[in-house]
């Protein structure tokens, strides 16, 4: 891995980290438009984070060091994920260190730490949130893994860049299995990023919230990091989706500069479209009861497995 690839790797991560809140802002903006509101503008998340960073942190008296460590772990984990996921180009030296399975493991680690932190304070809501978070997780994770498996069975590899390259080169071959996988992935995405219909990021209504309940006790810089990593998570998932199902336009070799430069606007456009689509879905659906969530996720899991089977059956 020479200096060039290293630089591209770093730029890719940094771009992701910087652009993540923007995507979040865009999605919220779109939702506002779809609901005939004016909306706070796409830069709102940045303001939010900046404001939080300046505040003094307030921490529950009986918080353990674990509690204060978690936001940093969250953020670090999401950055790592961004380093693995080919959002702009596929020449990612770091991707060697962690393939798709490791990626899923990474998300799981982040979730476990979040849940532990939520239980650390020992309020009713925290532990409830932790339980629900894990509940969503233990169904969503396998589904995500199965989606990756479908892709890697097609491309005979579990390393994400390789998968993407194979899929991109495949000159518009139709993969029915990927269709199933795609739907499953979309559902997982909604669940994992606490979007409607599984969860509602905008509410603090105790009985319905999942993700928010886990971070109730955080404030100031810790909350900022959490918010940021949440945005980054959404960004990562979107990029995974794009990479798996719309892999065209990612720069393959990292040496031709114009490829790299060309990749940015393409990805940008794709992200804008995806964000709008996400907002659209959220606006068209209503939040479901928490007890329905398992059914929703089981469906996702089954769809993913179905995709796998379809692939094995049709060999495509």
């Amino acid at each position, binding site marked *: 891995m020479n200096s060039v690839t290293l630089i591209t790797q770093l730029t890719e991560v940094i771009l992701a980290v910087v652009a993540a809140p923007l995507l979040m802002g865009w999605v919220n903006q779109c939702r506002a438009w779809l609901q005939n509101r004016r909306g706070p503008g796409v830069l709102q998340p940045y303001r939010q984070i900046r404001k939080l*960073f*300046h505040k*003094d*942190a*307030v*921490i*529950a*008296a*009986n918080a*353990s060091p*674990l509690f204060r460590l978690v936001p*940093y*772990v969250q953020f*670090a984990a999401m*950055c790592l994920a961004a380093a693995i996921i080919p959002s702009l180009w596929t020449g990612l030296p*770091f991707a*060697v*260190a*962690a393939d798709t*399975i*490791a990626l899923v*493991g*990474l998300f*799981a*680690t982040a*979730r*476990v730490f979040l849940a*532990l932190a939520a*239980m*650390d*304070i*020992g*309020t*009713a*809501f925290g*532990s409830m949130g*932790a*339980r629900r978070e*894990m*509940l969503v*997780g*233990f*169904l969503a*994770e*396998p589904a995500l*893994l*199965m989606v990756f*498996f479908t892709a*890697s069975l097609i491309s005979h590899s*579990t*390393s994400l860049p390789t998968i993407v390259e194979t899929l991109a080169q495949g000159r518009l071959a139709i993969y029915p299995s990927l269709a199933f996988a795609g739907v499953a992935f979309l559902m997982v995405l909604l669940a994992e990023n606490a979007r409607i219909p599984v969860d509602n990021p905008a509410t*603090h209504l105790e009985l319905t919230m999942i993700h928010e309940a886990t971070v*109730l*006790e955080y404030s100031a*810089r810790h909350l900022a*990091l959490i918010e940021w990593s949440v945005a980054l998570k959404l960004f990562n998932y979107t990029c995974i989706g794009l990479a798996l199902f719309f892999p065209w336009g990612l720069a393959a070799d990292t040496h031709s500069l114009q490829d790299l430069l060309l990749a940015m606007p393409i990805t940008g456009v794709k992200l804008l479209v995806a964000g709008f689509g996400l907002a659209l879905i959220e606006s068209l659906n209503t939040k479901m009861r928490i007890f329905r969530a*398992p059914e929703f996720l089981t469906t996702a*899991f089954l769809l*993913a497995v179905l995709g796998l089977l379809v692939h*094995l059956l049709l060999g495509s």
Partner: protein
Amino acid sequence: MTGHPTDLISVTALACGWLAIGLLGFIRPRSTGWVAHGLFPLGAVLGIAVTALALVALVQPAETLILPLGLPDLHFQLRLDALSAVFLLLIGATAAGISIFSAGYFRSGEGAAPGLLCLQYHLFLASMVVVVIADDAYLFMVAWETMALSSYFLVTTQHRLPEIRRAGFIYLLIAHLGAIGLLLCFGVMQGGNWQFTFEAMRAAQLTPVWASAAFFLALLGFGAKAGLVPLHVWLPEAHPAAPSPVSALMSGVMLEIAVYGVLRITFDLLHMQLWWWGLVTLGLGLFTSLFGVVFAAVQTDMKRLLAYSSIENIGIIFLGVGLTVIFHAFHMPLLAALALAATLYHCLNHAFSKSLLFLSTGSVLHATRERSLGKLGGLIHRMPWVAWLALVGTLAIAGLPPLNGFVSEWLLLQAFLFTPDLPHSYINMLLPMGAAALALVAALAAYVMVKFYGVIFLGQPRESSLSEAQDCGRLERIGLLWLAAGCVLLGIFPVPLLALLNGVSRELLGASLGSQLQHWWLLAPIAPERASYSPVVFMLSTVVLVAVVVLGVRLFYHGRVRKASPWGCGFPLLTPRMQDTAEGFGQPIRQIFEPLFRMRRELPSPFDTSPHYRVQVEDHFWYTLYMPIAGWVRRISSLASEVQQGRISVYLLYSFLTLVALLAFAL
């Protein structure tokens, strides 16, 4: 027979050494100081020695030795090859940690005399070593049953409690059942020449039918010890009953010894492997793991929870065995080697992390005298050492990167990803289901572990008495540290160890991952572009990133912190009892997997003045399998007792009729 079997002799000597230590306990059986601070550390040292020897033996050719003991025409045969070495490594390394912990753990005035415990404990260790190096059926059976017996006595240390007596009885009964299965298995495998050395069994040529019989008898015998469903019932009884170091030893080491037996018989002694054995094993393993993890999720006793989690891990291991058999049967040596490596690696992982967790529950038990999850909580403040070290074990069992549990699961999933290359169409339709189930199990394990750790160590203490809990002593810390270090190292440097494991796969399968492991830092079992994972880089970058972020935040902003009471969403008075209980945490699982359980509920009606709620989750197998058998025995015996009904005329009639019948028969 390669030269002078120095390693083997020294291993035997070490086993005898453990035995000697046990006997030394009788010099001053009642003095805790002598036993705990004198003998147990010594035992730990021997454990380290065993580990070192095993590491040496892993790369050396097999050695054999014959002792002038045993049956007149079947002397004790010993053999030390790579497979034995791996499990010696497991025994030694784990035992070292557990012994040093026990040195601090055993207090005076608990159950039996410490000298006795010392004897039983070290007899247990020695017998496990002998099982691993035994090379004939008789010695194997002797060591195997000695292992069962010594562990039985250890389990029943607190024999004054009826449920512990019951647990011990069930344990020994099922162990005996398994032993009978093994006896039959060896009887089948001798293959006609009535030699009971493993040497002869290797040479024996069985027909597929008999080979299958042998395999499934072995599966029965070792499954009973490993806790394969439906022979698992003893496990959740015995593990909570035993003192924590013992449960650690049983769950962390003894179960893996059973796996050793399966591997030894399947790949070494039997000359053929049929693919459908693998399929059955794999199915059993999957069901066991799912069963185990789901039950673990609804437990309210921390040691029962861990016991069920052991069942889950055993399931995963047997799944690996099954996969290995399938690949081997279809002549895919490289993939078989991959699956085998995953299996062995998972054995090691489970040994370290599970014993770590059992030991930490032991410390918690000592500090709080409390086993039920409903009465713990917030211990991370009172006993930080235990809490932070237990966190390592928790994450490892949950199979999260970059710790060791993840490595073996990663390898297994990789192996699964190659099943489509199998020449058998509907297996490679089936196996992805396996992968899916494995993924589900792994995710559920994370759920369980969050419950375990969160309820015990995090949150607020649910009982006021917890506030005077003491952190564990120095020796215990050393033991925990040793095991935790094992977890981390196994997690971060898998490649060198896998390279060591190559010896085993070369010995059993005639193939190894050797060529695939040239970079010490990169785990790419098949090919880098196909799949790769580098825990070192992963770990380092995580640490670096966290550090960068922390520093960054400190640099650009400030580190000011105010303490305040937690925010209760405007709810005025929060009490510790409002935290999620263990039952609460298990509730979604109970709902989703309802048919797996047999539940007895006591739900309060809205009009209760003092509402109280109780859910008891039980095991279907107990009622559908074991109870009926017991019933049958009772019925037959009551029939038999009609024979002995007290009237001498009737007795005379018996002998008269017997006589007449025999005379008629003889004519």
